[in-house]
């Protein structure tokens, strides 16, 4: 080739575009820009700029990046997969690299180079990390740079769920509300990113050699670098943060152009220009929200009617009532007059410090009230309820659901359905005969909808309101599906790839939020199911695009009160109307009010909860972060029976005896929560000393997380890895965890299977835990059908382990095992019956906390059992009452032993007025997708409430508390009605 040519690499990621021109290995030009979803225009701008500096040059070009695939295809240019491009760049520039960790806008990748490249990318479940950091910074009301700087001053790390942004947000919000230091929260957020990468992508592979960190977040965020280095135990030499960290993919793409034909740069620009003109409409499109401007105007006029009377604050005198709603992202205040008309409202972002904000507002209100207006009652609701109530001596705290109900009922007496979409939660209630009949809150995995739109708008350079306006008149909104927001991120990415404009994306997002609420949370089949008089509220419904999308989706008009965003506070104010004299801080007290927060670790038990201690100027303190009452220093609370605790005690009694034949270790996880007594009895009888691992803690999970191959498996299974390691660390050389296709046959279902994870997890442990290679891991396939079947299936393994073991011994041991198991089951049932008796004698509410045997593990249920106790319930487990109800006929194949118990427990709850049932469901449990509907049906057919709580690594009980309190509220209303 006569003319000199260069290599051009273009990397178009989910949020940014990068461009590099190189000559051989020498970089000539580079450029980095956010593309704000205007992929092609941004690329063209960058290319034209470059053309100014390098006019008329010949280039061999390749495009890479997640949003680059479509652009390359449309323009007829070469495409290089981005991980492959990274690999090329690293191979040439830093050949001794062992591992590359690359975090992009929405992708996370880890590439291992040793023994053939092994690249891992985040799966469909894990959210993007760059976008996650952006979202979290917005939540803390900081720029990413500020958050980064603050994080470096952190003194402690809070546990934050690392699966995806939505989960993490649920953890961060209470920390913010409880007044934890922002430095610490910032560092904890980065730690969550690190944990996610380590748990989700490294999956057990050890790190050898240099680790190179690439991508935007790792280039800009020093705090993140620090967390990575500390977590992975890297020193300066082994951690590489290259200068070209942002451009590695673009450089790699440029290096992959050897086989491309050199063409003039102008030709490249021309090709992309042309493709921009003929943008394909490959993405599904929806009908526009409004067919015409006129239709929009009619819509506005209709909703303008739903207003509330106001009374002039400056001229009113008399009694007034105050409602506060300290929500997840916003704080709302409403002051009403005696006739329930509105005197004053406030709606603003919490900005991470609700206390300061509320104080300012209260001062303002107290000042405006002067002597004319007496505040006779006050009530607070929302996430910050406890803190605000303690800080400002608010008269009552009221659970959110009841506050919203009160407001909507006042507004529309015939209301039979309320849908509230707030910053990060969706709440809906069905009402029957004026009482709450069903409550649905979004599961942790689909929350974040309202704030999602806002964060998304911001990331594209708009305010939420601007973004919404753009969507209103979009001609063809993109169909982004109806899943959790993390998936929507990917869908948006695809829409961008297809060249969808901002307005169509905005409208599409509104439709998705609505579909999410209807099909994921409410799970309605048809709009008719919702009700005749629907009231929608919550800040998200201020967005006309969302409101319109909702009306279109259900095919009916709904009412959106003018104060849609203030309904919680308004409801609280109405509730406060019951009071005659308020304890709310006076103006003087507010002026002198001061607040400090410090953190400490609770030493009450092995949980070591991180406590946040809030001190107020009146000398009072408020402690949060505790899992139980111990942290609050209260020990005098009433101890109600709790079968969960009884079962744990029974299992803890299984201590090792002297063993002439040596030690056997058994991980206390999954099926062991049912069968531990059996194996303990069996092996003890054989002369083994049986050692169980302890109940799980967060540390158990962290210990084993490096060896978990599937990041979407349930949390109880993930904990198994830590248990096995704990046993090995204790010096145990023989570990037992059998394969159990079939569970014990209780003759209460169509079959008696275990779920696939419980049945076969031993195979996964064997394949993925290298530590098991150094010891003896026994995982025979056993039958529990009868003593002889167990003897038959177990004997070969035992004989292999110790040739002196005879068949007769095994037969006797199996008998001992079954005797121990039967005795355990008997005790559990007795404990259940005793609890029921106690409750009935003492007139207490009974709660069946129904799940699986392993849900009693403190780390799996996160202390929900004791929370229920605190709220006044006598707690029983499904396996302690299922024997009191007959075998159930259900609409599905009833083929799992543990699940048959659920159905029977539900029947028991259905038949007893004083008994409620809450089902615990582990995130990712595929079997429960089937059981929940059935359990719900059994209860609802009997006119009972069905409450489901999804649990995962999440450590925050705030949302659970709301659900349980709502349940209590609903039960109370029911009782009052009777």
């Amino acid at each position, binding site marked *: 080739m006569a003319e000199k040519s260069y290599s051009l690499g273009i990397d178009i990621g989910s949020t940014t575009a990068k461009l590099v021109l190189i000559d051989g290995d020498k970089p000539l030009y580079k450029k980095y820009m956010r593309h704000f979803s205007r992929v092609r225009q941004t690329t063209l701008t960058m290319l034209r700029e470059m053309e100014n500096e390098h006019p008329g040059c010949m280039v061999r070009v390749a495009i890479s990046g*997640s949003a680059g*695939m*479509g652009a390359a295809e449309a323009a007829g240019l070469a495409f290089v*997969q*981005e991980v*492959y491009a990274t690999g090329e760049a690293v191979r040439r520039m830093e050949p001794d690299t062992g591992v590359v960790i690359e975090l992009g806008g929405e992708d996370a990748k880890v590439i291992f180079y040793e*023994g*053939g*490249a092994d*690249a891992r*990318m985040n*799966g*469909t*479940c894990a959210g993007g990390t760059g976008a996650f950091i952006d979202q979290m910074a917005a939540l803390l009301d900081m720029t990413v740079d500020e958050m980064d700087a603050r994080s470096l001053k952190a003194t402690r790390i809070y546990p934050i769920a690392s699966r995806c942004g939505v989960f993490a947000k649920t953890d961060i919000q209470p920390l913010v509300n409880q007044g934890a230091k922002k430095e610490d929260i910032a560092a904890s957020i980065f730690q969550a990113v690190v944990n996610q990468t380590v748990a989700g992508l490294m999956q*057990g592979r050890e790190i050898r050699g240099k680790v190179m960190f690439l991508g935007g977040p790792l280039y800009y965020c020093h705090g993140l670098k620090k967390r990575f280095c500390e977590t992975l135990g890297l020193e300066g030499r082994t951690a590489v943060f290259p200068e070209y960290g942002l451009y590695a993919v673009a450089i790699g793409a440029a290096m992959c152009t050897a086989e491309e034909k050199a063409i003039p740069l102008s030709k490249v620009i021309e090709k992309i220009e042309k493709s921009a003109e003929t943008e394909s409409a490959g993405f*599904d499109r929806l009908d526009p929200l409004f067919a015409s401007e006129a239709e929009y105007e009619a819509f506005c006029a209709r909703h303008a009617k739903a207003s509330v009377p106001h009374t002039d604050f400056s001229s009113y005198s008399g009694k007034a009532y105050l409602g506060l709603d300290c929500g997840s992202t916003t704080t709302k205040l409403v002051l009403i007059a005696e006739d329930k008309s509105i005197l004053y409202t406030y709606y603003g972002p919490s900005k991470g410090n609700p206390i300061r904000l509320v104080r300012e507002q209260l001062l303002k209100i107290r000042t405006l009230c002067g002597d004319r207006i007496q505040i006779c009652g006050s009530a607070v609701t929302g996430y910050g309820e406890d803190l605000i109530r303690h800080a400002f001596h608010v008269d009552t705290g009221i659970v959110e659901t009841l506050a919203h109900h009160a407001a909507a009922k006042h507004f529309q007496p015939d209301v039979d359905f309320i849908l509230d979409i707030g910053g990060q939660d969706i709440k809906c209630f069905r009402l029957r005969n004026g009482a709450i009949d069903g409550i649905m809150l979004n599961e942790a995995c689909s929350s974040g909808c309202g704030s999602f739109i806002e964060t998304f708008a911001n990331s594209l350079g708009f305010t939420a309101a601007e973004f919404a306006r753009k969507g209103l008149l979009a001609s063809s909104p993109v169909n982004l599906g109806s*899943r*959790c927001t993390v*998936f929507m991120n*990917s869908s948006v990415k*695809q829409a961008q790839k297809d060249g969808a404009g901002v307005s169509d994306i905005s409208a599409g997002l509104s439709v998705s939020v609505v579909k999410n609420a209807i099909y*994921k949370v409410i*799970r309605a*089949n048809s709009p008719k199911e919702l009700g005749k008089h629907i009231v929608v509220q919550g800040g998200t419904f201020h967005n006309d695009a969302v409101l319109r999308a909702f009306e279109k989706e259900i095919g009916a008009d709904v009412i959106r009160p003018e104060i849609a965003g203030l309904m919680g506070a308004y409801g609280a104010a109405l509730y406060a109307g019951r009071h005659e004299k308020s304890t709310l801080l006076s103006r003087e007290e507010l002026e002198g009010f001061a607040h400090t927060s410090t953190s400490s670790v609770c030493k009450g038990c092995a949980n070591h909860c991180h406590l946040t201690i809030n001190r107020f100027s009146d000398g009072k303190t408020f402690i949060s972060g505790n899992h139980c009452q111990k942290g609050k220093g209260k020990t005098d609370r009433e101890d109600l029976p709790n079968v969960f605790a009884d079962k744990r005690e029974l299992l803890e009694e299984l201590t090792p005896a002297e063993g002439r034949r040596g030690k056997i270790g058994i991980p206390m996880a999954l099926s062991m929560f049912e069968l531990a007594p059996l194996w303990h009895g069996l092996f003890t009888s054989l002369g083994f000393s049986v050692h169980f691992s302890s109940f799980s803690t967060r540390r158990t999970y962290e210990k084993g997380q490096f060896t978990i*191959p*599937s990041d*979407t498996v349930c949390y109880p*299974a993930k904990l198994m890895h830590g248990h096995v390691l704990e046993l090995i660390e204790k010096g145990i050389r023989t570990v037992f965890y059998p*394969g159990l*296709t079939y569970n014990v046959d209780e003759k209460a279902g*169509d*079959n008696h*299977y*275990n*779920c*696939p*994870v419980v*049945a*076969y997890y031993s*195979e*996964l442990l*064997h*394949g*993925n835990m290298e530590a098991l290679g150094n010891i003896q891991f026994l995982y025979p*396939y056993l*039958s529990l059908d009868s003593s002889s*079947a167990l003897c038959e*299936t177990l004997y070969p393994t035992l004989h292999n382990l110790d040739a002196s073991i005879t068949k007769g011994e095994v037969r006797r041991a199996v008998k001992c095992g079954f005797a121990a198991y039967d005795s355990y089951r008997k005790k559990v049932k007795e404990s259940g019956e005793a609890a029921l008796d106690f409750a009935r004698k003492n007139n207490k509410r009974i709660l069946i906390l129904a799940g699986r045997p392993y849900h009693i593990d403190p780390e799996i249920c996160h202390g929900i059992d004791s929370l229920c106790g605190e709220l006044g319930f006598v707690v029983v487990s499904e396996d302690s009452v299922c024997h009191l109800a007959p075998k159930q*006929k259900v*609409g*599905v*194949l009833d*083929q799992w032993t543990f699940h048959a118990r659920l159905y029977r427990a539900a029947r028991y709850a259905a038949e007893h007025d004083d008994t409620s049932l809450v089902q615990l469901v582990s995130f*990712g449990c*595929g*079997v429960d*997708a*089937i059981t*929940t*509907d059935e359990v719900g049906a059994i209860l609802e057919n009997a006119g009972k409430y069905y409450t489901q709580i999804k649990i995962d690594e999440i450590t925050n009980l705030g949302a659970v508390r709301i659900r349980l309190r709502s349940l209590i509220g609903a039960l109370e209303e029911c009782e009052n009605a009777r």
Partner: protein
Amino acid sequence: MHDKSFVPFTKEMKKDYTILVPNMLPMHFRLMVSVFKTYGYKMELLDDTGADVAEVGLEYTHNDTCYPAILVVGQFIKALRSGKYNPDKTALIMSQTGGGCRASNYISLIRKALKKAGFGHVPVISFSITGLEDHPGFRMSLKKLHGLMYAVLYGDLMMHLVGRVRPYEIEPGSATQLAEKWTRRLGRELGAEGKICYKHVKENYKAIVEEFAAIPMQTRNTVQVGVVGEIFVKYSPLANNNLEDFLVSEGAEVTVPGLLDFCLYCVYNSLVEYRVYKRKKLAYPFVKWAYKKICQRREDLSRAVTENSMLSGFMNFEKVPVLTEGIISTAVKMGEGWLLTAEMLELCEEGCTNIVCTQPFGCLPNHICGKGMMKPIKARYPHVNIVAIDYDAGASRVNQENRIKLMLANARKEKAERTAKKTAPETMCPVVY
């Protein structure tokens, strides 16, 4: 075990009902439908692939249910609503294996969905060899099974041949057209004769193989890719976003293990039930005989390929369970169980080390048998290049394709390196003319 809403398929219904069949594998299922035709059933395959299938499915099933169930429900309800079929004269059919995987609940989920959609009176036939439910108008017999076996064998043969030839054909579409021609012809044969003469079947094998081998082909630089996974997602283009077409368009030669393998896996599991748990003792000798017999039939099929063409056949199935030794026990029998792992091992053994492992999002058995076995497989075959892809209604295609493209880029690089070192094993070279 049946609740009140159970509607059996009666002998009366057999006369004038149309049975709708979800289409998992186009060729196989068309042949199977032909077999049923000989027994007087009127069946129709649903090939609705509209984007709204999943949406309709989601409306009527729990969102966290497996993707295949959502799609099947969507297809059924859309068909019943379309006006094309009289809902009072229509039945549905779905396979049921009755294992510990939640897939055995598809039937129940379909019934629940139908009830919600107002089609509660439409009978849903559970298609299972062991007869989990009783439908007087639809009972399996050895004779029917025998016919179905040949439908599966023919289907596997053609799927295999299309996979071998399609990437190299000069005239695009010629392999698919030939398969279409044979599907029609074999359908007529299986449908009209009732009796099946094995000698004639073998003649058909030969003719099919020769005709495929005669398709004009050209040299192309391809990489070999195997597709394994959850059975529905692995096969159904609707569920896997036309995975095979995508792979071929990216220059891959695609191997998808046959449907008979899954049937044999189910039979083998009965043997294991006896060996491990001493269950099903009486049936054991017969099942063992049947297993051998079917393995032999499959072996004949493979030989038909290798003897009549330069194309590769497939491994004797009796060797397949053996591959799992030291990696996973054959007692793992829920979902695809050990077969999934064995198929990956089989592909590696045959030199096809690039694998797409497909599963519905949150598939429980695949946590163990798919993702959970990648590390030990990699330990045995260090060059293996596996990518796990999750499919569900919300997964974005661009993410899936991006991950597959990475796998392909690594495959090409690996192949180039091997070719450069001249260490490429025979099987790594596609058969070209």
